[in-house]
């Protein structure tokens, strides 16, 4: 049942959708650049897992999902969190461990939660979000709402046992859940083929009688249509989907990762095909936006992000009494 959208002819997407995808993607890119620079200057410290290169995937979903739909992500999740609409000030404050953070500074970068935006779980354990996503989708199904749950994870997580249990159960119960494998080709420091027997992650869906799409996750149109088709199916009660969105991670697993396991040429090629500037060029080429309009958009986003950092840096650490609350 795998549909490979990358073999099809170019799919139509409206100018408004393309501009919307770019607006989210460039926000993520600027945020990431700002964070990495803050790490270098010592303004920020702690764990950071850059999603640079993977921006299009959640940005396309953002065009399809509602605020009351649910998203789960992993430690490399800042792109998913921004795309779902977690407010930047509280998000940044949480990354910096401040009292004003989404989780009062008690969760941190690997545990961002903001139910008001539908961002339900960020897990630091590879693959653990999948069974939880099954439960969230079950709750929506039992309550009779048409809310959809999107579970994001990487290619590495597809080799965890929880992947199997979750996909099987989601299919048995026909749940409104979409499993989005952001296949960035590397499970931490290990290349895809070293640890994965399947040629494609999407092929595994057949074992669960589940609908699947394998798409170029860096192609806005392909990604949008996979998102749209899977969300419409879930909302209509037509069950779960596995999407394999092929992409590439431009930065290391962590800032300390020297990336020796990535062939230099491969990385250079991927960066040369950076999907965010490519989409920007397309918007200009197709007269969807002018250089001036995009410049103004980017300047405004940069200002919003800088203000979020200033807000976070000016915020206090949690009161010591917080150690013993929320238990």
């Amino acid at each position, binding site marked *: 049942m795998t549909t490979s959208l990358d073999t099809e002819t170019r799919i139509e997407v409206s100018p408004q959708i393309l501009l919307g995808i770019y607006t989210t993607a460039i926000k993520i890119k600027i945020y990431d650049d700002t964070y990495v620079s803050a790490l270098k200057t010592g303004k920020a410290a702690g764990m950071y897992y850059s999603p640079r290169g993977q921006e299009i995937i959640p940005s396309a979903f953002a065009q399809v999902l509602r605020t009351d739909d*649910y998203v789960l992500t992993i430690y490399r999740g800042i792109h998913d969190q921004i795309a779902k609409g977690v407010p930047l000030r509280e998000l940044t404050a949480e990354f910096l461990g401040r009292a004003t*953070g*989404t*989780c*009062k*500074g*008690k*969760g*941190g970068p690997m*545990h961002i*939660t*903001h*139910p008001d935006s539908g961002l*339900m*779980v960020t*897990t*630091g*354990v590879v693959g*653990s979000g*999948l*069974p*939880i*996503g*099954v*439960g*969230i*989708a*079950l*709750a*929506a199904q*039992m*309550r009779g709402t048409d809310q959809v749950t999107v579970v994001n994870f990487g290619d590495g997580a597809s080799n965890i*046992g*929880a992947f199997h*249990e*979750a996909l*099987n*159960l989601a299919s*048995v119960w026909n749940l409104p859940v979409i499993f989005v494998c952001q296949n960035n080709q590397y499970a931490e420091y290990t290349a895809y083929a070293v640890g994965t027997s399947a040629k494609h992650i999407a092929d595994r869906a057949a074992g669960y009688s589940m609908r699947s799409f394998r798409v170029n996750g860096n192609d806005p149109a392909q990604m949008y249509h996979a998102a749209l088709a899977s969300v419409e199916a879930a909302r209509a009660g037509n069950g779960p989907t596995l999407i394999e969105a092929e992409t590439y991670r431009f930065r290391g697993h962590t800032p300390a990762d020297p990336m020796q396991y990535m062939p230099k040429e491969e990385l250079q090629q991927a960066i040369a095909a950076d999907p965010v500037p490519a989409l920007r060029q397309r918007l200009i080429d197709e007269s969807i936006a002018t250089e001036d309009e995009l410049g103004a958009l980017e300047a405004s986003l940069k200002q919003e992000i800088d203000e979020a950092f200033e807000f976070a840096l000016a915020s206090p650490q949690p009161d010591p009494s917080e150690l013993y*609350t*929320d*238990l």
Partner: protein
Amino acid sequence: MTTQAQAAPAAQDSPERVLGMVQAINDALDVAMSMDDTVFELGEDIQDPAGGGFKVHKGLSTKFGLDRVRPTPISEQAIMGAAVGAAIAGMRPVAEIMLMNFISVAADQLINHAAKIRYMSGGQTKVPLVVRTTTGAGGGFGAQHSDMLEAPLTHTAGLKVVVPSTAADAKGLLLSSIFDDDPVVFVEMFMLYYSQKGHVPPGDYRVPLGKLRTAREGSDVSLISWGRQVHECVAVADKLSADGIDAEVIDLRSLVPLDREGLLNAVGRTKRAVVVHEAVRRSGYGAELAATIHEELFGELAGPVRRVGGADTPVPYARNLEAEFLPHAGRIEQAVRSLF
């Protein structure tokens, strides 16, 4: 097939009704699901006609439907994870992990997620989840189906741990657990399924978590226990009374939250304490209780707190070895006498 008439508690609702522990738990589940549409069960084999390996769910799927008494594949990670997800999305799931040893299969979801999500989210997402499970030595099930694993759960911040010893408490504690906003591991000892029968109040009967029960009054020594061993302790106490030792038996009922005040008041009166549990003695919850009592009452004690636990071995199969593994009456009695 089980009929609805068999499943409904109506016929049993006389105040004098006497139920076994299995029926009492069934009654609690029935009451909770009748009261609140967000309560539902998920687990292996829980649907009728079997209603679970120990018949705990008998009649419930017939009465409430397979949507709310939801059979799962043998997938402990998915059961626990789905329960966590449903809980943070507004439901009150009651997940059954068929045997306590299988909690180890689902440990990531329980320890890394259920226990921590409320704290990590700064209180934004609560996890009103009950994990029911059963276990215990004495059934001849061998090493992988018998362990009492409450100690590592009490060592996991964010989990509540409850072990009922009577039919009425099983109902009352389970209802309190289901309507608690935090994850509770509810440990049933299957030897009690068959031995325990008693008056069980009808309807929404609740026993608060964190309140111990005095199972037997006494003034000379406090035997502190939970689950099956409470009854062993009462039997030993009855025997010792013939020798002039007046032993009190404390049933903790919930290990987390612990009725610390009630515990220290009791031992403060008797000046002697013996902690008895079925789990292996080494690093058992008894060590935590002994340390707590020593820290708070050291100068007042007539002797050191004694601990009686399961042998520091896996649970053996052969009947004689399994009997010796257990903290049986002989060992409890010896520990008590050593304090006089």
